[in-house]
């Protein structure tokens, strides 16, 4: 069938099962926007290309299907760089289509030309510059294959205008089915199962460990291995910590769950890792926010490290057993190997370890002081009420800062894929667009965006997108008048010398602003107003809602391991010192 490149591109996306594209047109991508009109694909018109990228990320994280963004050349593409980097750091499967100036004009500083593949080389798993219309179906198929297999990640496809413009003879092509056998990727061999011998070696280490901890990272979610992790933990009766990227992969209400480790992790999770004699790292990457000062991290622990990406093994901490493979398959293999070794009976008596852990849990729970009448709200309290007033499977997205850490600490994640945040890059402004993407992918689920006042001001305009497209997300906006996390560091490490962190409680007027964007908005200032406001928000299902929680500026996130210090020097809440 004869087609033009623009039609082929849209058809190729349909063949990949794409149901929604987040984007914004412009000169170079214009020809692709014409066949979009007839397509079955829903297009969501964003207000800024960064929003398109984060929406695609939220969609991908919530659904497990690749998110797709489509933007124009030059400024469109550069606006897309932040979400690409965000997706790269957090291994989110994304395909980003960018328009490019006509092939012959590349390199001439043409209007809205930029070297998109050059700029994004370091923030994508792979990128393509398509030079012939005939290659479009194959390259789109390769892009989706690369984005979704192995360690997932963002793939960018840069499309010169001439090969998609029906008025240009270079756009002529003959359609063919994009199937696996037409892919030309001789250098791409994603790992699958683990080496059985190494799995056996790992099982032997586990059978000898007296103080083991399962260190579950975001790879568990990427591998869709939550059920396997649960089976493993229960089989050997070993406690689990879930990193910021892994929250929800193991139920918080399970008795073996110790919660989040790391810089603002809870005392027990941090200390159990520190005291452990065997860390079983599954799809985790020993991020500096988890390890603290590396030479003081878990000094007595042997390490089993399972990751699909060979470059993670030994990158930070030398493992005793390193297994390259897909977590879902390797954990299943490990469960079999452990059963073959005798299952729970073969495990050492770990009663002392368990009682040590429950001792820490008793002495160092997460704590905060409720506000006095007349004082501003405590964000921790608001998050507890929000948690208890929403369905169990509510999807929570977050910005970056104090509110993010409190959300991760105080929420009870009992289901995988209910927590969506920017972990590796720490991108302020992630929350609102990610929530929109998640809601588009999971329209029957309640989606709450937890956001800070600083973050909100970076991408709030996407609430216009949400209103126009009738995407009823809910925003819990924590207005503490500060770039709070930075304020906390200045208080603790710069002798309370506050430099450029004050925002204001009053300006902007968030309620008016949200209303102007087509949202229902409420300001909440007292504890007794919190639950009624949330209940009201939960009833609204035809437009976005913004609840502005006026919250205490001076509240700090504890526990905290100060940057560059050992996890043994964890600073607990003042009331526990």
């Amino acid at each position, binding site marked *: 069938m004869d087609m033009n490149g623009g039609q082929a591109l849209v058809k190729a996306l349909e063949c990949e099962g794409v149901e929604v594209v987040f984007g914004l047109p412009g000169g170079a991508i214009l020809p692709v926007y014409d066949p979009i009109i007839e397509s079955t694909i829903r297009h969501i018109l964003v207000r800024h290309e960064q929003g398109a990228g984060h929406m695609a990320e939220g969609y991908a994280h919530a659904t497990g299907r690749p998110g797709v963004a489509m933007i124009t050349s030059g400024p469109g593409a550069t606006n897309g760089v932040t979400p690409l980097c965000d997706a790269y750091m957090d291994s989110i499967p994304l395909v980003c289509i960018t328009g490019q100036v006509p092939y012959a004009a590349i390199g001439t500083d043409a209007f809205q030309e930029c070297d998109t*593949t*050059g700029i994004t*080389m*370091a923030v994508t*798993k*792979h990128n393509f*510059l398509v030079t012939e219309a005939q290659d479009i179906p194959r390259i789109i198929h390769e892009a989706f294959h*690369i984005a979704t297999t192995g360690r997932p990640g963002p793939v960018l496809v840069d499309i010169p205008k001439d090969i998609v413009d029906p008025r240009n003879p270079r756009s002529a092509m003959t359609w063919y089915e994009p199937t696996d056998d037409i892919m030309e*990727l*001789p*250098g*791409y061999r994603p790992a699958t199962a683990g080496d059985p011998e190494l799995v056996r070696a790992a099982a032997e280490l586990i059978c000898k460990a007296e103080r083991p901890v399962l260190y579950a990272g975001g790879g568990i979610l990427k591998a869709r291995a939550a059920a396997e992790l649960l089976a493993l933990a229960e089989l050997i009766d070993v406690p689990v910590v879930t990193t910021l990227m892994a929250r929800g992969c193991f139920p918080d209400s399970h008795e073996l769950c110790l919660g989040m480790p790391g810089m603002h992790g809870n005392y027990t999770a941090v200390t159990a890792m520190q005291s452990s004699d065997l860390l079983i790292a599954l799809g985790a990457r020993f991020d500096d926010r988890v390890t603290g000062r590396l030479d003081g991290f878990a000094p007595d622990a042997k390490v089993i490290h399972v990751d699909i*990406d*060979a*470059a993670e093994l*030994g*990158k930070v901490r030398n493992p005793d057993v390193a297994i390259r493979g897909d977590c879902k398959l390797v954990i299943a293999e490990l469960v079999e190997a452990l059963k073959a070794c005798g299952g729970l009976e073969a495990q050492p008596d770990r009663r002392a370890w368990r009682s040590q852990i429950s001792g820490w849990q008793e002495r160092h729970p997460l704590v905060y002081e409720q506000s006095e009448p007349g004082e501003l709200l405590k964000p921790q309290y608001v998050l507890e009420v929000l948690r208890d007033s929403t369905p169990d499977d509510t999807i929570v997205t977050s910005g970056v800062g104090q509110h993010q850490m409190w959300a991760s600490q105080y929420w009870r994640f009992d289901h995988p894929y209910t927590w969506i945040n920017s972990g590796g890059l720490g991108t302020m402004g992630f929350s609102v667009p990610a929530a929109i993407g998640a809601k588009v992918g999971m329209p029957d689920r309640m989606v709450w965006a937890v956001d800070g006042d600083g973050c909100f001001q970076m991408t709030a305009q996407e609430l216009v997108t949400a209103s126009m497209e009738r995407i009823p997300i809910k925003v819990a906006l924590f207005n503490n008048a500060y770039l709070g996390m930075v304020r906390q560091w200045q208080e603790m490490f710069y002798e309370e010398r506050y430099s450029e962190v004050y925002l204001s409680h009053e300006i902007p007027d968030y309620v008016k602003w949200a209303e102007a964007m087509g949202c229902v908005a409420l300001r909440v200032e007292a504890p007794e107003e919190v639950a009624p406001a949330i209940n009201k928000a939960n009833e609204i299902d035809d437009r976005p809602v913004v609840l502005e929680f006026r919250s205490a500026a001076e509240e700090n996130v504890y526990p905290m391991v100060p940057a560059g210090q050992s996890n043994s020097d964890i600073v607990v809440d003042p009331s526990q010192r």
Partner: protein
Amino acid sequence: MTATSQAAAADHSHRFHTIVTTVENKPGVLARVAGLFARRGFNIESLAVAPTADERFSRITFTVDVASSSLEQVVKQLDKLINVVEISELSPTESVERELMLVTVDVAGGRRHELLELVDDFRAYVLDANQSQMMLSLAARPGRLDEFEEHLRGFGIVQLQRTGRVALPSLDS
């Protein structure tokens, strides 16, 4: 060998690593490979690129100046590049390395005969000559090229170009 050049050679084997990659013969692949080193501030000491017997692929041979521990990490990351098909590190003791030098030397001082003796000794070739200058070529071990270059300095080097080394594993390694 002088004491300093001996020390340099020892240092050489310790820090310099020869990496041979087979990559897809496509635009931009060299930039991806080089970019991984550039991002870490590692210097590529020598580089040679050419298509293989199968023209869909190219071989990039490069020598880098990094500690072994960081190298291992970069090699794993190179392997992750979609266009990189194969990658191996060649140790100097288990491989054969060659490099080509083209050099124009000043012979105006009447030392033409002396230079031709040197050419013989090193099994180099004379490619071109006129009244005052002679152009030579030599393909040999990189260390041998260093020595040749050292000798030629006494005559006066007008222009010199080296290709960067290529390498293959030794047959019985």
